[in-house]
């Protein structure tokens, strides 16, 4: 059977009179890293929320590894292997950073997959190490700076050991040096392998990002949204040349 890894069909979401996501259809494969770009308010975050089940679509289907996931509970979807981050970071503020990640490690999916790993804490630590904030593991999450919070978000998502990782602006607020590191880590994660006790089969990814210069380095394919509609779908090189994308999103001069 040639079932795609993730298949989205006619996904639509309205907010009052506003159509945030309009009839979006695409599919992606297990080995892809997909970039999702578009102007502000194009519906990127909404699309990710629809996939993770936080929002319910008004119409359309999402099939993940052959199973319909629209209508399932968020935690079911996560346990099927889709993890996501929040654009506006939502850490557990009064918990130590390590506990933030341990929550993800406690999800049925991570528990099952890491059966041979006895120590949750060690696993959580590895996720933090991956995101580069392991030195602050015992601090309260409320003490983190904006950029570090972003990394915590990523660590939390990675700790569920997903098949598909949805990253919403993973580089937002990171300084250039750190963005570099983060981009490299993400790339490495996609390649698969082991990070300490954290096991990664190299998840497929959908990355929403406005920092194209780094995004281009890690994605194989880009989808462009505008006013909820998909206006382009192609390799990075094709996208930057697409006049509609340039007009709606890139503007002249910027890459």
């Amino acid at each position, binding site marked *: 059977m040639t079932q795609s890894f993730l298949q989205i069909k006619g996904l639509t979401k309205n*907010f009052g009179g506003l159509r945030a996501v309009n009839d979006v259809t695409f599919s992606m494969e297990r080995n892809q890293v997909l970039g999702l*770009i*578009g*102007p*502000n*308010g*194009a519906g990127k*975050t*909404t699309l990710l929320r629809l996939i993770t089940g936080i929002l319910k679509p008004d119409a359309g289907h999402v099939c993940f590894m052959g199973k319909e996931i629209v209508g399932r509970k968020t935690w079911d979807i996560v346990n099927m292997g889709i993890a996501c981050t929040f*654009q*506006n*970071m939502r850490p557990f503020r009064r918990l130590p950073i390590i506990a933030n990640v341990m929550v993800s490690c406690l999800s049925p999916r991570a528990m099952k997959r890491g059966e041979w790993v006895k120590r949750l804490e060690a696993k959580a630590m590895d996720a933090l190490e991956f995101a580069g904030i392991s030195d602050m593991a015992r601090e309260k999450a409320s*003490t*983190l*700076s*904006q*950029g*570090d919070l972003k990394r915590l978000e990523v660590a939390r998502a990675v700790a569920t050991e997903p098949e598909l990782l949805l990253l919403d*602006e993973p580089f*937002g*607020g*990171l*300084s*250039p*040096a*750190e*963005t*570099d590191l983060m981009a490299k880590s993400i790339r490495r994660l996609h390649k698969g392998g082991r990070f300490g006790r954290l096991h990664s089969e190299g998840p497929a990814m959908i990355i929403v990002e*406005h920092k*194209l210069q780094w995004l281009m380095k890690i994605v194989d394919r880009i989808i462009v949204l505008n006013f909820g509609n998909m206006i382009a779908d192609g390799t990075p090189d094709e996208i930057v040349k697409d006049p509609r994308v340039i007009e*709606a*999103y*890139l*503007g002249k*001069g*910027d890459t």
Partner: protein
Amino acid sequence: MLLEVANLSVWYDKAMLINQLSMGVDTGELVCLVGPNGAGKSTLLRAITGLVAWEKEITRRSTHGDIALEGIVSFDGERIDQVAAHEIVKRGLILCPERRRPFREMTVLDNLMAGSYLLKDKDQIRDNLGKVYQLFPVLQDRPNQISGTLSGGEQQMLAIGRALMSKPKLLCIDEPSTGLAPLLRTEVFQKIRGIHELGITVLLIEQEVSTVFKMSSRNYVLSSGKIIAEGTGEQLLQNEILRKTYLGL
């Protein structure tokens, strides 16, 4: 100097976030603060605008997290380190905070009006509103949307717009470009430059080093609560170590 910071130190429960820091911004400058994540840039701005002191006051009786603040901050020739945050704002030192923070359950228009809270002149408010709308047409399209439901970038626009609604002498903006699409980002930078050219002094935190260095008159590089370098964009870019370790270029 319009803003002068001398030997400022900030402790959050034994952790020293700002370490004996001194800096200054002259009238008419556009100064940029750069540095790695967690360097203390946002904390510095919060300390200058009185938010750290405010936080210290309201958490005074908690069991943990003593906040301590030392040093001198003066603005427009007067010391402001003992002045309450809202009074500082009245003197014309405006901060557009990190992480956008709109008044979530209020409409877009109300948010903008809150930004012009201190302005008395109705015409001027209308005028400013027009300018903000011109910069961010999205906001004009939906003045009545509850701001918590805006998209991330839209909220960022709202936060910048809100700061622009007032009449600052010194405008501090904390990472205005996060979450903005490239097209808009360029526009925002242009607008900031425009504001600066109107004679408003600007203090900017930004990660987008390559863009800001082109417009800033002076830059500070912050790391671990200390200023480790200072100079124009060109000067800084010449320093190889700085380029590699702090600016990531």
